[in-house]
């Protein structure tokens, strides 16, 4: 398992995807750290400087806690989309490349079960995504604390929620990879799934608008089968934003959203493992 993880990380480093992601993240973190200077007095923002220029606050003082929460929840929403896309981009090749002629023989000739091999690649990919998220979220969280002395551990929880979404989508990317042995197809189908699932958040409206009952049932069925990418994004923002933003997702059935996505993850992964273990190479 450790050998397989090491290889996943070395491969990511060699492909520049990981390095580029870390370089961009570092750049963003450094700019953020250097550009934002806040003057906090008694828990309120009395003055702010952005790139050395004073920001006109109209003589008002802003509650720093609310400001930080607003920034962190907004950023977690941004990271939900960007982080998920980058993580899939950086890991979708793991199965197709493994299955290449001349490569798969080297791995399967070792005393490692096929399911273990696939799962070690999957968990390796997740570890890679987790490392990326931890680096970006952890650094920003530390800088925000350094600048404002406000610490919201919930911001770090956003990473878990994003990672859960990545896990579900990566399981599907692995399934597509096992079936097609193509990185391109894995990427395209997984991104398509992300958007289609997000569209299906409006399944009730779509079902009401379509003419046939059969189509309406199909839309509703797909909604319950697919991961709830739109709801998970909103839930991530709400998780970080706390009370202020939780109202926006007050009617959300968390159990159904997370539960059905977890079921999708498990089904995709099980199917991928089953097909991989039966495949002739």
């Amino acid at each position, binding site marked *: 398992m450790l050998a397989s993880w090491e290889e996943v990380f*070395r491969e990511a480093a060699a492909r520049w995807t990981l390095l580029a992601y870390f370089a961009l993240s570092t750049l963003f973190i450094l700019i953020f750290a250097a550009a934002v200077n806040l003057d906090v007095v008694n828990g309120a923002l009395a003055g702010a400087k952005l790139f050395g220029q004073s920001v006109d606050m109209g003589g008002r003082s802003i509650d720093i806690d609310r400001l930080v929460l607003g920034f962190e929840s907004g950023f977690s929403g941004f990271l939900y989309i960007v982080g998920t896309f980058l993580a899939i981009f950086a890991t979708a090749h793991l199965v197709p490349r493994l299955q290449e002629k001349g490569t798969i023989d*080297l791995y399967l000739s070792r005393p490692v079960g096929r399911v273990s091999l696939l799962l070690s690649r999957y968990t390796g990919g997740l570890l890679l995504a987790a490392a990326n998220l931890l680096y970006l979220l952890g650094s920003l969280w530390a800088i925000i604390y350094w600048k404002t002395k406000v610490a919201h551990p919930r911001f770090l929880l956003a990473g878990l929620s994003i990672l859960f979404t990545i896990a579900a989508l990566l399981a599907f990317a692995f399934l597509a990879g096992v079936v097609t042995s193509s990185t391109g197809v894995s990427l395209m189908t997984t991104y398509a799934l992300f958007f289609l699932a997000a569209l299906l958040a409006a399944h009730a409206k779509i079902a009401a608008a379509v003419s046939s009952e059969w189509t309406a049932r199909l839309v509703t069925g797909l909604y319950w089968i697919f991961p709830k990418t739109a709801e998970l994004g909103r839930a991530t923002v709400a998780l970080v934003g706390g009370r202020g933003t939780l109202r926006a997702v007050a009617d959300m059935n968390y159990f159904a959203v997370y539960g059905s996505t977890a079921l999708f993850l498990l089904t995709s992964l099980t199917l991928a493992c089953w097909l991989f273990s039966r495949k002739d190479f």
Partner: protein
Amino acid sequence: MEASPIQVIGLRKVYRSRFGSNRIEALAGIDLDVRAGEVFGLLGPNGAGKTTTVKILLGLTFPTAGEARLDGVPCALPESRRHVGYLPEGHRFPGYLTAAQTLSIFGRMSGLDARTVKGRIPKLLERVGLADWAHVRVRKFSKGMTQRLGLAAALVHEPRILLLDEPTDGVDPVGRREIRDLLREEARRGTTILLNSHLLSEIERTCDRVAVLRQGRVAAQGTIEDLTAQTSRYKMVVSAPDDALIAALRETGAGIERVNGHLIVSTRDLEHVNALVDRVRSRGAMLSELSPVRSSLEDVFVDLVTPSPSPPVSPSGSIAGTESQTGGRGDGETGG
């Protein structure tokens, strides 16, 4: 009784197209039994079933019927590969890894701990002639160097069984000799080696026994000597083989060729050979040598794999025609 390291019993493999319309029988029920410490060559033209056999042995492909075992363990189980080293043809190690990293990762995947692997890497790279390349990325390696690295990766966990597919492919003549020596050294240590190669000279020099596959069946199996012995033809060295002697020998129905001062006689059977010897002696000629003419492995291979109207193989797997003339000199061990 201890199981043979490599056992293949009635192995069949039928490939079907995606929608099941086409059906190709890659293996039509083959039996192989490779003994411990033996270097066994698998020969055959393209599509004969060599690679499929090796892939089934390694669990890469599933058989349609029959059994394959490594060290007595069914090949479907990962545990069967615990003591197996494999060098696939056209293998592609990740180009971003260095030679040392490659051996480390694949060594640990074979169940070794990191410390043990680390200790073995320098010696192993030295052994395959890559000591100076330990920290160079594999993508910079030539084909021959990649092949040497593949061999090192196959040996990293000191396997008891080695399955090698074209191990000298892309390697220069000196390197080939080094690899041959290395394989012989492994065999002396008791490693069982299954060698799959198109280079017949390579097989001839390295293997103890070979099996020739043709259209998914074992066309012949035995030692190189068994397979190359053409016992219907003999080299006969006699003093002064004049035309009268040759005419007398021809009277018996033997085919006679004069080659470099000696005679090559084609006979029907051993009785016929003895009759010829009697004729030579009765004419006062001195017989100083009588030996069966051996053909090269290449001749045998071409004869075996060239389609002929009648099957070239006897049911026992020895070459058709050989057994009757030699009183069962074919090795007779092809059955599983």
